[in-house]
């Protein structure tokens, strides 16, 4: 339907059945449908430059459903940040929705009326999890927006002074919802949809033909007069490279926000271009940030990267790098602040929460930075990943970083020279020990099994070659000699054991195994004793009625055993008339087995200790320094 503008007579087209208002292209009057008539409700300001790639008339398709952009709304936060774009889209099927652009992604939402109970604005806070119907979502932002301007058609009557209260929410599957509380007195509306890449909406190749969104623009520093070229037109803050003035790039002319200090030379220069994974990225901004913990400042650097997929980050602390991507808050489930969080099925442990501030800034940033601004940063780690949140007033934003070494960053950005050396252990640095230790434990267990089987096999060959009663001397010492016996199949270990029923007495046996042919002898001594009694009403006993000694590597030959006992008993004691002595060849000898097992498990144990030490060093600078608490 085409009508004439009541102000200038220019044609105004209403393509959307749900469109209630439109802005005249000719005179920028906002007109509202009233039956068959159009009512002029006043002029709206000119559009402001943003980084949007879209324009009225752009056509796309989502899951086979074609749409056309028929309206355009520009909003900004009440606090005065730069405007963002929301595009009013009409589907061929007759339905409609909003297409919003957010840091390189699109958010397509449709109005929903099936959720009966919507939460009140005052009951919501950032980070809260809420139910909307059967869906659980995370509240990412609770804020106020104001109308800036519009073009084309709109599904409601615009007002230049209107403010809107809203809450943005996301879920774990990429779902997104806005609870639009409107202006005071309005009914609450729910819009829900999901995040899309431009390609998902058939808009990957679309470029505005109106030239209203040039790639970058220039501004003049109000402090020193230097010309500053912005790489990204939507950048809201920029640091003058000449005088280090921090400027509000959303204002024309640029407004001085603060005079920055410091002349740090970022290790990775602004303008450096590189590729991380499939993404082509350029360094457009750099910040030095710090947290104050227990009276000590800890600094780290953040590089803002920009590419076709939007913004990314590289952060570096003590030479440990993280490649950071923003994620929807709804992906973070099972959050217990200060303890743990879940994201995409991975469990993260809380590392640190602190108030961070910006110390030094270079290049440009996509948000308007406040001098002295402090935000609450919380980090959760599951090496090589780190999950981080930044909470600032009514907004909480989440990101996920993946550990990179300096060498990897240098290779990605084709930098010459060596990257800054890493010190200590990075919070998300993968611990290289457990994987090696795991393999070592496996090998060690296999080797231990082999050794145990060998020990079992060898001990099965034991054989008793002599049993000899050794009479006890009635008085003084008495030597007993065994008949000669043969040992063959050696060299081999020989165990000499003895057993006697001693009571309150002891028997000492000096035993010599004598090779009757060569005269080589091995002498050992061991004791049999047994004492018992009552003390303090309790029974006690000590000693043993048996004893043994092992002689190793005994060569083959004819042997005799010489046994020389001595003994002593208490008045109530009892000594047997004789002691049974036995000679056993190839007995089980525990020493080599114990030594072999010790040597086998030594290395895995050393690795385990080193792995623990690595983790202790990682967690030393966290909020949980004792072993990661």
């Amino acid at each position, binding site marked *: 339907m085409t009508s004439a503008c009541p102000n200038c007579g220019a044609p105004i087209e209403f393509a959307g059945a749900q469109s209630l208002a439109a802005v005249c292209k000719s005179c920028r009057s906002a007109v509202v449908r009233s039956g068959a008539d159009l009512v002029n409700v006043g002029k709206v300001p000119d559009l402001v430059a943003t980084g949007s790639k879209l324009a009225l008339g752009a056509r796309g398709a989502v899951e086979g459903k074609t749409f056309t952009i028929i309206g355009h709304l520009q909003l900004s936060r009440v606090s005065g940040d730069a405007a963002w774009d929301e595009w009013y889209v009409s589907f061929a099927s007759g339905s409609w929705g909003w297409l919003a652009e957010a840091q390189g992604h699109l958010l397509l939402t449709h109005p929903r009326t099936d959720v009966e109970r919507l939460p009140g604005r005052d009951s919501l806070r950032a980070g809260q999890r809420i139910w909307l119907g059967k869906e659980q979502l995370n509240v990412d932002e609770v804020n106020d927006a104001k109308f800036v301007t519009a073009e084309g058609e709109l599904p409601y009557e615009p007002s230049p002074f209107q403010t809107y209260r809203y809450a943005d929410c996301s879920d774990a599957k990429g779902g997104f919802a806005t609870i639009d509380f409107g202006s005071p007195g309005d009914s609450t509306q729910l819009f829900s949809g999901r995040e899309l890449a431009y390609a998902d909406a058939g808009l990957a190749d679309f470029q505005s033909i109106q030239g209203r969104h040039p790639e970058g623009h220039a501004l003049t520093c109000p402090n020193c007069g230097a010309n500053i070229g912005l790489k990204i037109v939507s950048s809201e803050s920029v640091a003058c490279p000449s005088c280090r003035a921090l400027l509000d790039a959303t204002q024309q002319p640029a407004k001085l926000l603060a005079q920055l200090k410091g002349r740090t030379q970022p290790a990775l220069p602004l303008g450096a271009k590189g590729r991380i994974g499939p993404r082509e990225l350029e360094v457009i901004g750099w910040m030095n940030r710090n947290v104050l913990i227990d009276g000590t400042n800890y600094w780290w650097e953040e590089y803002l990267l920009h590419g076709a997929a939007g913004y990314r980050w590289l952060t570096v602390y003590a030479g440990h790098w993280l490649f950071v991507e923003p994620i929807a808050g709804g992906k973070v489930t099972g959050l217990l602040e200060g303890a743990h969080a879940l994201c995409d099925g991975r469990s993260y442990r809380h590392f640190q929460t602190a108030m961070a501030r910006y110390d030094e800034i270079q290049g440009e940033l996509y948000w308007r930075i406040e001098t002295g601004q402090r935000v609450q940063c919380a980090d959760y780690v599951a090496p090589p990943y780190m999950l981080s949140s930044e909470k600032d007033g009514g907004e909480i934003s989440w990101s996920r970083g993946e550990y990179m070494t300096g060498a990897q960053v240098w290779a990605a950005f084709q930098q010459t020279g060596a990257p800054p050396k890493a010190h200590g252990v990075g919070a998300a640095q993968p611990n290289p020990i457990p994987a090696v230790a795991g393999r070592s434990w496996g090998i060690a267990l296999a080797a231990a099994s082999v*050794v145990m089987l*060998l020990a079992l096999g060898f001990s099965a060959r034991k054989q008793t070659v002599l049993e000899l009663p050794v009479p006890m001397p009635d008085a003084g010492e008495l030597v007993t000699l065994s008949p000669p016996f043969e040992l063959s199949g050696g060299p081999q270990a020989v165990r000499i054991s003895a057993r006697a029923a001693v009571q309150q007495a002891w028997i*000492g046996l*000096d035993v010599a195994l004598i090779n009757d042919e060569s005269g080589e002898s091995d*002498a050992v001594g061991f004791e049999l004793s047994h004492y018992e009694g009552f003390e303090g009403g309790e029974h006690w006993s000590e000693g043993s009625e048996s004893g043994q000694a092992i002689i*190793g590597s005994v060569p083959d030959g004819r042997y005799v055993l010489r046994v020389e006992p001595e003994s002593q008993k208490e008045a109530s004691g009892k000594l047997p008339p004789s002691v049974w002595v036995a000679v056993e060849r190839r007995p089980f*000898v525990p020493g080599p087995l114990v030594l072999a097992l010790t040597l086998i498990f030594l*290395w895995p144990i050393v690795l385990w200790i080193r792995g623990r030490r690595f983790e202790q060093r990682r967690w030393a600078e966290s909020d949980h320094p004792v072993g990661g608490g």
Partner: protein
Amino acid sequence: MKFALYCALLCAAFAAAELRGAVIVRAAQHANIPASVRSSPGGYRSYHFWHAGFQGGK
């Protein structure tokens, strides 16, 4: 891989030690008895072997 080789060598060394009846700590006192002692009747009885020096008692 090095550790696997180390373990294999250790298993082989253990098997060799078991075959030879080796002990880690040698408790026996080794001596060579003169041929004159061996050839004389009662020589082993009277020859002075090493004594453990028992103290006995509890």
